[in-house]
């Protein structure tokens, strides 16, 4: 609640009750203000700290840091393009897969599933979000990677090895495994938000569609999905942000080899995994500063995603014509 709104309420109270605001009211306002300042302060403080600590790296590595591909801590040559590529490739692929799956799950839960099934299933989908990242990582490396190698990668490689997507030697660890693990991790977020959004579509819309003679699928297509579209886009962008930031599970299965390649079997690397792997033993000050700059880039990418998300939803909801507010 905004401060001026509180003030307006005070004024109303003054007129109606003819009394001064109670002590509790003032305290409450103070507590809220403190909470807001704290959150903003932490955010700005961290940004300032990141920028300050990145300065040695920026001075040594310059702008080419962003578009060169060599990462050599021994000779202190640093370029993050492959890590940037890996981060976007894994997060965007996982977002697309998780959105397709998540919307399907949400439609089933809201529109099709009997109540007796809907509740336990949606509870179980949400439980996926409660599993710690390291558990996903261990599952990825000990169960999923060998399984994918034998039953997915090897057959694909044997039959479609000529397709660039399936070229390279399948070893189980690499982009494909990282994308699958990330998809499972992002899915509960997308599914839960989409379910809420779809459930909020007014019942009258559905009834109107049925009244026009729509089948169940047509009803969902013409009455439910257009209404829920902005919310679903919001859900998938939220999933994208989660995918970009996810660290440990990805670090365990991606194969830690900076490479810009279209091959899904190839090991890759992400920015967050790089920081997690190398920060603890980064022993020169330039090396440390460079890893902090990688953190800064990651922060800016997340910021960009949020801005794009706002713009997208604003546009989808009709922009200014519909009385939407951008900021």
């Amino acid at each position: 609640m905004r401060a001026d709104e509180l003030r307006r309420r005070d004024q109303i109270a003054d007129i109606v009750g003819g009394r001064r605001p109670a002590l509790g009211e003032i305290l409450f306002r103070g507590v809220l203000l403190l909470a807001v300042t704290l959150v903003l302060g932490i955010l700005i403080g961290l940004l300032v700290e990141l920028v300050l600590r990145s300065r040695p790296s920026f001075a040594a590595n310059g702008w080419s840091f962003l578009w060169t591909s060599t990462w050599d801590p021994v000779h202190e040559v640093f370029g993050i393009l492959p890590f940037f590529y890996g981060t976007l490739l894994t997060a965007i692929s996982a977002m697309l897969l998780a959105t397709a799956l998540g919307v399907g799950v949400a439609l089933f839960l809201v529109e099709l599933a009997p109540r007796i099934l809907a509740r336990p299933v949606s509870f179980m989908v949400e439980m996926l979000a409660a599993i710690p990242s390291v558990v996903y990582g261990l599952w990825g490396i000990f169960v999923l990677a060998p399984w994918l190698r034998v039953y997915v990668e090897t057959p694909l490689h044997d039959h479609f090895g000529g397709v660039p997507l399936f070229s390279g030697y399948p070893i189980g660890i690499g982009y494909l495994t990282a994308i699958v693990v990330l998809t499972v991790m992002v899915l509960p977020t997308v599914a839960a938000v989409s379910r809420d959004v779809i459930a909020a579509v007014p019942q009258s819309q559905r009834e109107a569609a049925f009244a026009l003679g729509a089948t169940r699928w047509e009803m969902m297509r013409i009455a439910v999905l257009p209404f829920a579209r902005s919310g679903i886009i919001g859900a998938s962008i939220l999933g994208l942000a989660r995918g970009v930031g996810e660290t440990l599970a990805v670090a365990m299965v991606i194969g830690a080899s900076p490479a810009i390649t279209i091959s899904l079997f190839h090991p890759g690397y992400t920015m967050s995994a790089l920081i997690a792997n190398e920060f603890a033993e980064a022993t020169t000050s330039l090396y440390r500063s460079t890893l902090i700059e990688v953190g800064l880039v990651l922060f800016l990418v997340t910021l960009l995603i949020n801005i794009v998300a706002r713009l997208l939803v604003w546009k989808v909801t009709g922009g200014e014509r519909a009385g939407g507010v951008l900021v």
Partner: protein
Amino acid sequence: MITKRRGKRRLLALTAAGAIASALLLAACGGTSSADKTATAAAGAPGITPAAASPVTGATASASGSASAITPPADVGKNDKAQITGAGSTALTPFITTIADIYHKDVAPGVSLNYGSIGSGGGISQFTAKTVDFGASDIYLNDQQIQKAGGAVLNIPVIHWAVALTYNIPGFSAKLNFSPDTIAGIYLGTIKTWDDPAIKADNPGVSLPSLGITPVHRSDGSGTTMNFTSFLTDVNADWKAKVGAGLSVNWPGGVGGKGSEGVTAAVSNAPGTIGYVELSYALQNKLPVASVKNAAGDFIKPTLASTTAAVAAQVPTAPADLRFLIVNPPASATTAYPIGASTWVLLYKDYPASKSAEVKAMVDFLWWAIHDGQKYAAQVDYSAMAPNLVQKAEQALKSITIGGQPALGS
């Protein structure tokens, strides 16, 4: 328009969540800021050579300095009462916690050890920040780090281990041999299949499949990588020019696994892979390990004994400050496995009188650790110190002073 409202509110929540997520991420990145100030350059630093350490500079303590003539008894610490704190190398953890328990039970009931297994880099930071009594690292401090430590520093190796090569070749059960150049070739990507002439030459009469080789390395910064790449730098000019030695390096290819378990998982899952792990990890998990050709020209299997043999061969030429690596020992050591490693305990040479109880207890404990403690190394699959190294470590411990007085036997 219920949905639109909802959508908007959702978006607000989403932006807030994004902001908080970023904030947390930053917190994670910036968390070590205090350590950062004192953190010192280390093993990954450019210019470090795997051969014997560079000449001793100003602040480096010479071990033989003010050694006292009296040799303390083996149970020197039995009347000590103190809690010792140390932190660093994860490789040291099984050994030091095992012997600290035995020391507490059998020798000095008043002494207990609190060891933080936080990694070598963390151990060096904590040590130079003086928040622990001793640090432990898989690589000795370089000159720059010693200067930052603010006082004369002793690097004392207390335990040894080897870097073992493990592999996955389906249907292969013979003994596998590698010469150093073959290992470099595999990790450089110039040797691409298991039936390459170079591998065949190392393994005459053994049939090897025409299967692609995928080299697996550690993705996290690690002392194992440091010693492995130091070995390759020492034996192969190509490796030295293109990659070099460090805790993390720019690998020419292959796959990274996080930790020894990550490397092992990658190797055991996929045929055709080869990876390197600490010998203790290979022994405990019963992994197949390859023999490596030493300077004498013999293919030696990594064992506790062949590692100690390598240590013994390196000691006579080691500098007085004990900063030396156990890679590629001289040809006189015919039974030595050539990729060895040490874990160093990091100590100051002079301590103020204010911490005398802890420091005395710690020096007494380390005295016991390099003597009686060594026989427990094999229990945790580590190699004991060579006798000629124990003598040098004795000199180093004897040189430690508390308020100007020798710490040992006082």
